[in-house]
Structures are given as structure tokens and as C-alpha cells.
């Protein structure tokens, strides 16, 4: 019977500097993770070499070549910027509408019951339904994707803001009241600091999904963006292009999550759970 992961988790040798970060486990970890990626690529290459025709499943090398070609053409950056712009519009609208709803939900029981079904329902709508709704209401336009991203992000913003309000220190609030602080001061020094981390958590929770929905909606009906390019690959029956865009998609999400969201989140929440062992995933 092997020991559990938690008992195995011991800090690396603390000699200081770089050496302190290097432990046997760390090396094994990187090696295994590389091995995992390589065996996947190997499987892919083998399948395309021996099992399928190249137009059915192009080899990873062909896909990389195609990605470089697409990058040089310049349509990748353009498509991503366009999609990012639409996603951000939807995001801005979601925060603008979700913030007041969340504040009400956190403060008043009536508001919580009132918005209960809306939040639950919006969170459970299959993405394809959102895409259909966008297509019906807006046809082929840029507003459609932004609108449905707003609908998708709204419940996350509302419920996280509500949780933030609920988490605000009640003692501080009643003390402010005893000392006759006005509402603005309480909001600024007690409520907002409590709510802000939860708002960022909402961003973290919904980022990948909102990006996927945005691209999906573009696939259904749009004339620009990543989803449009993917749909073009589909209509021209090019598995090569579809796989290339798929890779760009993954690279983009992983970069944003690992480079932008995760570190900012760690910094913002550092005061909350010091020393919380977080086995990175």
C-alpha cells in the first residue's frame, strides 16, 4: 500500500537559489510530463503514417508547417484580435449588468430568490443553444457573439459578487455603522475589497468557456474571427486547417490561463489562504 500523495509532498532541498528548486521529484515530474506529450504526438504521427490517409489525419509535422504558413499570412493575429474584441465586449456588458444584480443578491433575500432561476438557467444552457439564439436574433453580425458571451458570463459574475458581499466582514460593517460612517466609505473600504477577488474568480472560472462560446457562435454565423476561420476549414473540408486552428486555440487558452490569470489570481488571493498546498494542475 503506497503512501498518499499528501504524505509524499515534501519541499525540495532548501540549499538556496536555483538549486533549492531542483529535487528528484521535480526532475521526474518534468520528464514524465514531457513523456506524456511526446507519446501523444508519437501516437498521432503513427496513426497518420500507417492508419489513415494524410488528408484524413495529417501528421503533426504537417500541421506545424501549416501553422507557420498561417502565421506568416497574418490572418491568425487578425482573427484572434477580432474574437478577443468581441469576447471583451460581452465581458464588459456582463460585469456592467451582473455587478448590480450580484450586489442585490448578496444584500437582499428577495433579490436572491428573484434572480435564482435566471442564474441557474443561464448557467445550464448548452452552448449550442446560445449560438442558435445569437443566430436568430442578430443573424450574421458582430453583436451576436458578444451578446451570448454576456449571457454566459452574467451568472458567474452575479453569483460571485453575491458571494463576495456575503463574505464581507459583518463586524466591520456594524462597527462602521456604530461610528456613523456613510455608505460610500463602507462600500469603499469594506464591500469592494471583499467583492473584487470574487469578481476576478468569476473571470477565471468563465474565461475558457466564454472563449469557446465566442468561437462557436462565429462558426454558426459570422464573417470574421477564429470561429469563422474554423468554419471555413470545415466547408473546404480541410482537416489540416481545422487541426492548425485547434492548436492555435489551445495555445491561446493555455497562455492566457497560465501566464495571465493564474499568477494574478495567486497574488490577489495570497492574503486569503497562506500556505495552502496547491498541487498545480
Amino acid at each position, binding site marked *: 500500500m503506497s503512501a498518499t500523495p499528501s504524505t509524499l509532498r515534501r519541499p525540495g532541498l532548501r540549499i538556496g537559489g536555483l538549486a533549492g528548486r531542483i529535487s528528484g521529484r521535480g526532475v521526474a515530474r518534468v520528464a514524465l510530463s514531457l513523456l506524456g506529450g511526446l507519446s501523444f504526438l508519437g501516437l498521432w504521427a503513427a496513426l497518420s503514417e500507417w492508419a489513415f490517409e494524410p488528408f484524413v*489525419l495529417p501528421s503533426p509535422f504537417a500541421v506545424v508547417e501549416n501553422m507557420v504558413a498561417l502565421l506568416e499570412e497574418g490572418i491568425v493575429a487578425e482573427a484572434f484580435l477580432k474574437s478577443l474584441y468581441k469576447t471583451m465586449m460581452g465581458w464588459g456588458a456582463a460585469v456592467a449588468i451582473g455587478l448590480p444584480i450580484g450586489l442585490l443578491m448578496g444584500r437582499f433575500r428577495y433579490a436572491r430568490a428573484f434572480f*435564482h*432561476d435566471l442564474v441557474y*438557467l443561464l448557467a*445550464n444552457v448548452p452552448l449550442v443553444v446560445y449560438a*442558435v439564439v445569437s443566430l*436568430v436574433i442578430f443573424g450574421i453580425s458582430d453583436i451576436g457573439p458578444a451578446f451570448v458571451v454576456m449571457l454566459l458570463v452574467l451568472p458567474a459574475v452575479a453569483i460571485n459578487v453575491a458571494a463576495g458581499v456575503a463574505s464581507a466582514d459583518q463586524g466591520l460593517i456594524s462597527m462602521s455603522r456604530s461610528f456613523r460612517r456613510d455608505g460610500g466609505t463602507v462600500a469603499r473600504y469594506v464591500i469592494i475589497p471583499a467583492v473584487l477577488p470574487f469578481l476576478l474568480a468569476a473571470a477565471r472560472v468563465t474565461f475558457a468557456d466564454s472563449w469557446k462560446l465566442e468561437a462557436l457562435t462565429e462558426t454558426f454565423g459570422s464573417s470574421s474571427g477564429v470561429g469563422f476561420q*474554423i468554419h471555413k476549414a470545415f466547408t473546404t473540408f480541410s482537416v489540416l486547417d481545422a487541426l492548425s486552428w485547434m492548436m492555435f486555440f489551445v495555445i491561446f487558452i493555455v497562455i492566457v490561463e497560465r501566464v495571465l490569470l493564474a499568477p494574478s489570481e495567486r497574488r490577489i488571493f495570497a492574503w486569503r*489562504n497562506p500556505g495552502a498546498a496547491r498541487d498545480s*494542475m
Partner: protein
Amino acid sequence: MGAAEGLPGVDPRDSDIDRSDVIDVPLGETRRWWSFLASDTAAVWTARILALLIWQMAGSAIDRIPTPIEVGEFLVEHADLLLPNIWVTVQTAAVALTIILVVGTLLGFAMGRWWPVRYFFTDLVMVLIALPAFIWALLAVMWWGFDDIGPIFVASISATPILIVNTRQGAQAVDGDLQKMSAAYNVPVMRQFRKLVLPTMSEYIIAGFRFAVLAAWGAILLVEFFGSEEGIGFQAAFWYDAGSFTGMIAWGFVMLVVIVAIDKIVMEPVLRRTRRWRAETTGWSM
């Protein structure tokens, strides 16, 4: 998904915003008739009726948007199509979810239990989670055409990673000290598994499975929309091609109703059962 591990922040799909959260406040001593209007039930129904009214008004004001009455009439008119198509999609979902459950729990458990397995698969699972279902759906249509394997493949590949991540967290949450003690007192492995590992993990597995059901459902609908000859997704695509926005919205409504029904009738009671041993719920409700 499963992103904000161990950090504050609520995923709206995961929070305990179920009916148990909305309980009527006992009316005050002065039982005036209008005090009912402030109760939770009144709030919930006010919201529902308002939403329908807003939809109706939007539908009458804008030509493109069908009104709820038109959608209802459409569904009554095409009632004979409803059950066969729902049955096809639900059947596909059942097959896919069986695969997802078996692969997801086994791999997730292995990843939580043995660190070499974890490090081998972690990045691969991350990449699979980042991949959108609709690209898989388009690829599946290009690869297999209208074959039945498409929906099952896409559902499995996009929903299994979600369950893997949750199961892995569950396996890692098993109390290490209790496990060491069990080993020291020679508790049989099966008994350890039944009394210690399973109760801890079941909550994580069911919570992850609930997400997986939602993801698989969406994935199957997508494949049906892009390339299929039957099912709910196909019907939506069919009426879109026929130029009927009412038909498209009606079938979109069916997609939503079925998944909400599955979530409410099957997933939520099971989830609550796995959480019943807890002293208090972990939701955000005060």
C-alpha cells in the same frame, strides 16, 4: 473548469442554488395579506412571469424573435417528432456517459493515487480541457460523416477530462493519516476502499459527473447539428435550413428543458445524497 481549485470563487453550475436554498420565510406576527408578496415563492414566480412577459414583448416588437406562444404552438403541432428525437439523443448520451464514467473515474483515481501517472497525464488533460467541443464536432463530421460514432467520440473526448480532474481531486482529498492508520492496523484493502476512499471520492465524482453530463449533452447536440439525420440537434439544424426561426428556437428550448430536467431529477438528488454526511453545505448561502 475546475480551475479555481481551493480558492474562493463560485462556479454558478456548482453552487448550491437549488430549491432547498429558497425556503419561505415564516410570515411575521402581523399576517397582512401583502406580506406574501415578500416571500421567496412570490419572488421566484414574479421573476418567471416577468421573464415570459419580456420574451413575449420582445417577440411582438422584433420580427425575428418568435414569441413564447408561437414556440408553444409549434411544439404542439410537431408533438409526434418530440419523443423519437429526444430518445435518440438521450440514448447516445447514455452510451457516451457510460464510457465517460468508467474512463474518467479510473484515470482520475490513478492520477490522484500515483504521482507518476499524475504527471504523465496532467498536461494532456489540460490540453483536452482547453479544446472546444465544436472543433471536435466539425472534425468528427469530416472523419465519420453521419455515423453514430461521431457524437459518442466527441462527447467522450470533451467531457471525460472534466471528470478526470474532479476524481483526481477526490482521490487526493482522502485522509492520509487515516490511510496510514488503516495500513498499520491491517485493515483489509476492500474495507479501506469502502469505508474511507469511496465516501470521500463519491462527492467529487458526482460533482464532476454533473459537469460532464452538461458538457456531453452540449457536445452531442453540436455533432447532431453539424452532421446527423436524427436527434434534437438535427431538428434544430433542419428547421434553420427550412428558414423557420420558430422551429429552431423551439428545438433549442427542448435541448434546454431536457438537460434541466435531467439535472433536477437525477443529478441533484444524487449530489445531495453524497453530501449528506457533511455537517453543513459548502455553498455560498449564508
